[in-house]
């Protein structure tokens, strides 16, 4: 279980990716490489195409061209459920908690896609609130509880590459801090994480690298140790 993580292994390689919703052309030739165990962020202003990039990886947009390699296999012709079974766990922007399912049903809905996922007990230890509310309907949860559930849900499946879309959005500082701790633990376990984030102060201490997006393109790649030098450039892109 504690095999050292091969940090050179390319878990994800996106090349020349174009993506469309119907007629609208959203992504214009994206290139991204993520190695195993890395935590990479997608930064950018609203509408830059960060969520669309995650959805395109999941084959949840309209047409796609280019190539998306996951663990060395091209997934452009794979259906979403086949992509999930390659070990990809997706946490959508609006959390996607099913209102008609209770907490435990939500939690156990996604099938286990790889061995090595967390057991229910381990998950309830990490998120004690969810245990207390395990028989509550999804519609009855607070925003923070929903976000915890959305995270917990993909940890149970054994997915080793997580796509997380704005998980801190609209949450109280204590919950944001809790999510930061969770991400640290997952990173320590060797999971590969792609994080779309508005809250740069949340993302900065966690991330190994940042991709900055604008108008459906990657305009800058910044590694953690370049961050200080490129801070003003970054602020410019993010409009802060």
């Amino acid at each position, binding site marked *: 279980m504690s095999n050292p993580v091969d940090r050179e292994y390319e878990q994800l390689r996106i090349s020349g990716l174009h993506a469309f919703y119907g007629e609208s052309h959203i992504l214009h030739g994206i290139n991204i490489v993520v190695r195993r165990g890395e935590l990479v962020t997608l930064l950018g202003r609203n509408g830059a195409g960060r969520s669309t990039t995650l959805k395109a990886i*999941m084959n*949840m947009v309209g047409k796609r061209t280019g190539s998306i390699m996951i663990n060395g296999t091209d997934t452009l012709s794979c*259906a*979403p*459920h086949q*992509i*999930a*079974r390659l070990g990809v766990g*997706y946490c*959508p922007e609006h959390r*996607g908690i*099913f*209102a*008609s*399912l209770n907490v435990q*049903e939500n939690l*156990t*809905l*996604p*099938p286990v*896609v790889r061995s090595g996922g967390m057991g229910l007990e381990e998950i309830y230890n990490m998120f004690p609130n969810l245990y207390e509310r395990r028989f509550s309907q999804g519609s009855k949860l607070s925003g923070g509880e929903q976000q915890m559930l959305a995270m917990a*849900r*993909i940890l149970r*499946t054994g997915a080793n590459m997580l796509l997380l879309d704005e998980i801190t959005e609209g949450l109280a500082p204590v919950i944001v801090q809790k999510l930061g701790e969770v991400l640290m633990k997952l990173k320590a376990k060797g999971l590969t994480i792609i994080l779309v984030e508005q809250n740069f102060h949340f993302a900065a201490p966690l991330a190994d690298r940042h991709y900055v997006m604008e108008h459906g393109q990657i305009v800058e790649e910044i590694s953690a140790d370049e961050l200080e030098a490129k801070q003003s450039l970054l602020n410019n892109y993010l409009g802060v």
Partner: protein
Amino acid sequence: MDMILGVPIAVLAGQLLLGVINGAFYALLSLGLAVIFGLLKIINFAHGALYMLGALTTVVMFDAFGVNYWVSLFLAPILVGFVGVLIEYFLLRRIAHEDHIYSLLLTFGVALVIQGVLTNIYGVSGLRYSMPDVFRGGVNLGFMFLPYYRAWVIVIALLVCFGTWFMIEKTKLGSYLRAGTEDSQLMQGFGINVPLLVSLTYGFGVMLAAFAGVLAAPIYSVSPVMGGNLLIVVFAVVVIGGMGSIAGAVITGLLMGVIEGFTKVFYPEGASAVIFLVMVIVLLIRPSGLFGKEA
């Protein structure tokens, strides 16, 4: 003789019983429609034709191979359900990404084709099917005579409805259906084979229709056109109940049968129109239906 509101109790109870029986059929059929609508988001206009196929299969299997009622009760829904899976796989799936109006029209076309072909073969006059001997006769309840077969229809239809409700609301498989009803794309993103689930769900909804068809064979006239008239009433039931709820479909079905029965007693001329009258009133007051979620 005892009277209520100037009507003999026996007459009232008799009509009520007929109402509950009709209601049981409405419940089974609108339940199937609700299950299909939940995941596929289409109103299955082929539902009446598939109900008819269940009844016709029962009659034809008996005439040709001597297949008895009890075997038909399982075999006909399985065969017709398989036809449903084929319809989904070869037709509905091809246009699932288009506007749902096309799928709806396609199911309507499928119904016309099935009905047309079978009318050519069997005509429209109605085939005879006699009920199993155990169901002959009935029991005198004192205030009314209850034929055994009618009692059986009510009990088994309610059991199947309850079983379906339980499966959807209380089991793991049902949680897939509920989640898929909310957001099938996200479900698929979690690794669940949604296309397969869609095929099986359509097949299951169709099985419910065919099961109702088998139940109908001994008491209603079996012919290729038997589904058409019934379906119009069932659509009204679905509109009244609202599409959102499994339990709602069942309850509304039974309720409308009973209301129809009562109307037959007190104002027979209005019996065939009363459900549509209720539909109009519900649409005016609560457009999403009695059990539907407010938009």
